[in-house]
């Protein structure tokens, strides 16, 4: 396997007694889009800042194309950084902002002009080149920041929650734009976000951070469908976690006994052993509702509807099963799921994902 573009090797970082990043290793391949996803304070931004050179690791090393870089000052790292609040230079025009990294590299004036023009075309801001950042909208400023971080063709592009300040619609558009740029220019991108939907949309791989370490790393599909830990299951998307004990295992699945004595059948038992405590994760959209007395016998839980909220494209139903609350997403046209109704919730064994407790 080729040398990874960027490698974090047992990197740790402490601020005083607080350890923010703990003995973390991560390889990012050339042309890969990796999201660092996690709640605030989980160490993802600190890791990015160490890659950029704004923070020094207290332990471990960072390599770029096999060359150790953690002792280099930021201005010698060849990393394009896109900051949360854009960090555009307010006293310079859009064109001057984009030309800045080229000027710093002593590139000739005519070449700068051409590259700035191409960068502006790339983010569709050619008409704005002589404006000051303050005269642009948030989305336009973000695109300038992006053009500025890309124009000098850095080895890696580091983005620190770059879309956090934009409204939802613009954010979704920018996600697709950045993804398209990544594909077209074959950029290596490290993208910090706390928005799991954003990470799912954009990434080749997602690294889920928790308490200074990587809880799980994998493709969006892996992370969403096969969370390895409870933290990942709860952080990525919405899920229902049901606690139980494995009572039997077979070729196609396992039987899990719940606290109330009922049994659920789950598929893909894998390495489960009889007697182990597990959590069963069932996504809200995988649960279907039926009136009492109908529906299949497997994995059917009789419950009562606590609340039912119309959400536009779906109906969000809250169920109460012996003090355990289920969240179900169901067809918005179903009028019969009103609060107080007695129903049966059921889900296929294939839709149950088992996590070791």
């Amino acid at each position, binding site marked *: 396997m080729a040398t990874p573009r960027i490698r974090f090797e047992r990197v740790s970082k402490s601020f005083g007694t607080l350890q923010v990043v703990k003995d973390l290793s991560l390889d990012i391949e050339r042309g890969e889009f990796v999201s660092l996803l996690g709640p605030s304070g989980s160490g993802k931004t600190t890791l990015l800042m160490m890659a950029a050179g704004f923070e020094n690791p207290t332990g471990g090393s960072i390599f770029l194309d096999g060359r150790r870089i953690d002792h280099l000052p930021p201005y010698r790292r060849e990393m394009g950084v896109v900051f949360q609040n854009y960090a555009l230079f307010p006293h310079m025009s859009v064109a001057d902002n984009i030309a800045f*990294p080229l000027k710093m590299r002593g590139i000739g004036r005519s070449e700068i002009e051409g590259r700035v023009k191409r960068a502006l075309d790339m983010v569709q801001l050619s008409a704005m080149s002589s404006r000051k950042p303050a005269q642009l909208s948030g989305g336009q400023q973000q695109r300038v920041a992006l053009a*500025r971080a890309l124009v000098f063709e850095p080895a890696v592009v580091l983005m620190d929650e770059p879309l956090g300040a934009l409204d939802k619609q613009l954010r979704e558009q920018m996600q697709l734009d950045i993804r398209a740029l990544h594909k077209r220019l074959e950029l290596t991108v490290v993208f910090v976000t706390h928005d799991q939907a954003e990470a799912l949309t954009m990434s080749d791989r997602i690294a889920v951070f928790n308490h200074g370490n990587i809880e799980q790393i994998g493709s969006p599909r892996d992370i969403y469908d096969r969370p390895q830990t409870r933290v990942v299951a709860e952080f990525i998307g919405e899920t229902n976690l049901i606690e139980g004990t494995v009572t039997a295992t077979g070729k196609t699945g396992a039987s899990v006994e719940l606290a109330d004595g009922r049994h659920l059948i789950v598929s893909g038992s894998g390495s489960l052993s009889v007697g182990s405590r597990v959590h069963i994760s069932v996504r809200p959209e995988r649960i279907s509702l039926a009136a009492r007395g109908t529906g299949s016998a497997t994995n059917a839980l009789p419950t009562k509807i606590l609340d039912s909220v119309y959400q536009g494209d779906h109906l969000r139903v809250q169920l109460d099963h012996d003090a355990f609350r289920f969240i179900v997403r169901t067809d918005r046209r179903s009028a019969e799921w009103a609060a107080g109704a007695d129903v049966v919730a059921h889900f296929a064994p294939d839709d149950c994902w088992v996590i070791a407790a």
Partner: protein
Amino acid sequence: MSAFRQSIGTFALVLPLTLFLGVFFIWPLLTVLEQAVSDPVVSQNLPRTTAAISTWNRNSEPSDEMQIALVEDLKSIDDDQNLGEVVRRLNSAQPGFRTLMRKTVAAVEGSAEPTKLGEVDSRWNDPSFWRAIAEATYPYTDRNLLAAVDLQHDASGAIVAMPAGESANQAILLRTFTVAAVVTVATCLIGLPYAMLIAASSGWRRQLLLVAVLLPLWTSLLVRTAAWYILLQDKGLINSFLMSLGLFSDPLPLLFNRTGVIIAMTHVLLPFMVLPIYSVLIAIPRNLMPAAASLGARPIRAFLQILLPLTLRGIASGGLLVFMAALGYYITPALIGGPKDQMISSVIAFYATGSANWGMAGALGIVLLAATIVFYGVYGRLSTKTAGA
């Protein structure tokens, strides 16, 4: 109706300030201006002459009415002090008036009948003496303003430079501006890094650094200057420290010279440079310098191209504050400086309290004010240009 009531309310709110400014600022300013240009001595004490001379063409023989009027006026002045002021005023315009007037007054008081003045003294036939009276009858004059910048009228009325050695106002004004400029540069050189240090620190360190700047503002200017007086002495703290290091065998002359004045003024005015720069610095987004570094700018270039241009507004307003305050400094040069370091304020103080020449004090004040306004105008033009560019 409600809009009208609202505007009445607004007016009522600004009324106290307007009155305050009017009574304690605008009116005194106008009074000073009036003092600087008023010249009422002759017109008040020689009212008949003033009336009679107004129709005279300034070249012909002095008319009989003028002579009669002057004699009447001289007879009716019974206050010797007033007569003395008139003589002094006329003599300063036309030398020879002192003896002429003494002779004339003696002659006039002796006779009952109005006299032909030409018979008393032949100089009264010379129109230039009458011209001097005619000039002096205007209640306003530019003599003080001209004298404030070492200019005067010659006998023909043209504006010429005063003979060398008669007045040093130009030199003192130049010295004032030079000292103010040097102090401004010095406060900037010290204040900019210091303000950057405050902006970069946080928590109790920032508080401590800020208090260190603000503390001098809480003590009286006189106390701070007196402290420098002690520190800068030949056997003061600074000299004894430098000599104990063996750097110098003789004490550095720091007191009663320009160096001491500039050191003390720089210290006293430092807060006015540090605070505006600091307030601009903390408003600069913190991630601009990291951004510049990530884009390949070394610290020096990032400072010159990003931080410095963004701080310029603070430096400009700090510089303006320091420069203007330094122009009017009086106590510090008076206590720390030697005779060659006195600034324009001490000259104003001399005229105002030393020689009771309110006209000259006012005129110098006006010149200083005008120069300051010009500087402020230039600053305003430059700052709007930078902000708009």
